[in-house]
């Protein structure tokens, strides 16, 4: 890894540790190994959103050409959001692509992601299914996102109605995550989800 990249990451690492966001427990960065090429990010779900109370982990890969090219960031925690793939965790955010500027830091990236969670951009979706639900059935979207936060990110809102439906599919021999995905996709319409799973 080249000199500038290592120097930068070391410095940024300190910046995040010192930052007031860490004191408020809203963002955090951890090293994986000691190469400074792979890091683990952590963001708290922003308040007054379906993600509130959840903790989301990120995989951050620092390229050789950092900071002239953006870091590669992906959600490790499953999340229901229009701009984040519900399957792979890939993120659609301009600053992680062509709008990246060398003067940006890991801290600004994490804060931008937090802002993205609070204000989705459904017209520029990563996950078309989620984006459609976000636009057409905002209430179902909020409930689904909150349910996913509860299950995968340790959020507080349990939804027993959803759990019952998932259990019905599990009884039919479907795996839990797959059942949740299908039900979420079909706006928790048990019949349509079943139809799709068995077709």
């Amino acid at each position, binding site marked *: 890894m080249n000199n*500038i990249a290592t120097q*930068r990451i070391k410095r940024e690492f300190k910046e995040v540790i010192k930052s007031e966001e860490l004191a408020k427990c809203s963002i955090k960065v951890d090293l994986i190994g000691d190469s400074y090429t792979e890091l683990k990010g952590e963001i708290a779900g922003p308040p007054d959103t379906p993600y509130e109370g959840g903790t989301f982990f990120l995989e951050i890969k620092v390229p050789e050409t950092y900071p*002239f*090219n953006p870091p590669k960031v992906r959600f490790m925690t499953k999340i229901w959001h229009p701009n984040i793939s519900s399957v792979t965790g890939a993120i659609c955010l301009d600053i992680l692509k062509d709008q990246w*500027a*060398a*003067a940006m830091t890991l801290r600004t990236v994490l804060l931008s992601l937090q802002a993205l969670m609070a204000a989705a951009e459904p017209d520029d979706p990563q996950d078309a299914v989620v984006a459609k639900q976000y636009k057409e059935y905002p209430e179902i979207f909020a409930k689904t996102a909150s349910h996913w936060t509860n299950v995968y990110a340790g959020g507080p809102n349990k939804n027993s109605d959803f759990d019952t439906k998932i259990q019905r599919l599990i009884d039919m021999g479907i795996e839990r995550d797959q059942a949740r995905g299908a039900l979420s996709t079909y706006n928790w319409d048990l019949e349509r989800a079943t139809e799709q799973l068995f077709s």
Partner: protein
Amino acid sequence: MSEYDDEDMEYSDQDDYEDYYNADRDVMSPPHNPDAEYFPVQCLTVDEVEKFLNELVEQLCTSIHVTPSMSKVLLYENKWAVQEVLWKYNEDPDKLFVASRMKTLQPVTVKTIRDKFVCPVCVGPVAEELGITSLACGHCYCDNCWRCHFENKIKQGVSTELSCMALNCELLVPEEIVLSTVNKPILRKKYQHFAFREYIKSHPLLRFCPGANCTAVIKSKESLAKKAICTQCETSFCFKCGNDYHAPTDCATIKKWITKCADDSETSNYIAANTKDCPKCNIFIEKNGGCNHMQCLSCKFDFCWMCMGDWKAHGTEYYDCSKYRENPQNGSESARAREALKKYLHYYERWENHSKSLQLEKQTLDKIKERINSKVMTSKGTWIDWQYLLDSATLLAKCRYTLQYTYPYAYYMDNGPKKELFEYQQAKLEAEIENLSWKIERAETTDRGDLENQMDIAEKRRATMLQDFFHI
């Protein structure tokens, strides 16, 4: 007072009329070319283009005292309109520089005390021999970071769009800064090459010839959706969008159509299957020439390749197999989808059919040449007597080309009298060129008058189809 006003009005009215008539007789206006498709272009080499652009750059430099590299940024951002840049400059230079991404309204002022300066990108102390540079925005970075930034971007193919490293700062880096910082010869060359291409792309009157391996640049006087022909490789294309020339369809529509055809490639594959059955005896028939009037080799049945109906029906009434009839009573979603697909296939089939016929153009010409030779050898007319056949074959190809591009246009037209009229005219042209094609294949020397008559009719019909396109 009011009387005077009235008089004045009348007087000026009359003046207008006079002006109107005078304008009509204006000898200064360029002679009107009767061919609406006429589009003069110039074919330039890379060196000539470079000279042409440099002249514009110099013109601006001498007028407003900026460096050549600043002048390039100004021209690039303002589509090379020197007069417009000068005009804007005289009005408010700051506004022009801000709009052209050369200045910011509130530059950052960083006190660059050398010893204490920490470059925000590499966050290290700046080595003694390195400089600290900022653009007009005031965002300071060490020269080493600038170099890494430039090299990284150039490798990604960025040139004229190279900007400041600060977040949301869109200030462009002038050429001279890039070239004085980057010292790897390969990257410098790459940068210059990319920048030159970008300059040409940003100039509204310059276009790269889309022909394979052709390096020519085409220059015109206006940016119009007309047919430009490269004199080096003879590729012809629409000057505005660079696709194949597509009158009477406009640039946006043809793009939509081409994408649609590419998307529906599976269907088109199916359609592209070359054979059809004879409607009477069901023998497989492959079409290997331009004409739609087919005669089955085994049962001698004359039929139309397009609608597979009896050709007899085509001679007397007007040729109506180019018109698509929409089936109005359809309720269910799948029926509608099927109807939409049928509609698309109808237009696509005709589009593809003409395109195939055109591909056979060279073959047809060779055949005609062969026929001329054999006729001359058997002393049926002299070589000169037969030349009109080649002219008519060229015209036939031209008509087919236009006709091909009328189908996407018709496909996207709204139903109504306008579309009906258009499809009526389209059918007329189809009929005329089928006639022409049939006559060309069977012409004798004595048919010359008849054939030339037919050519004239076809060309007139073609001009009618293009009328709307050139008079919007």
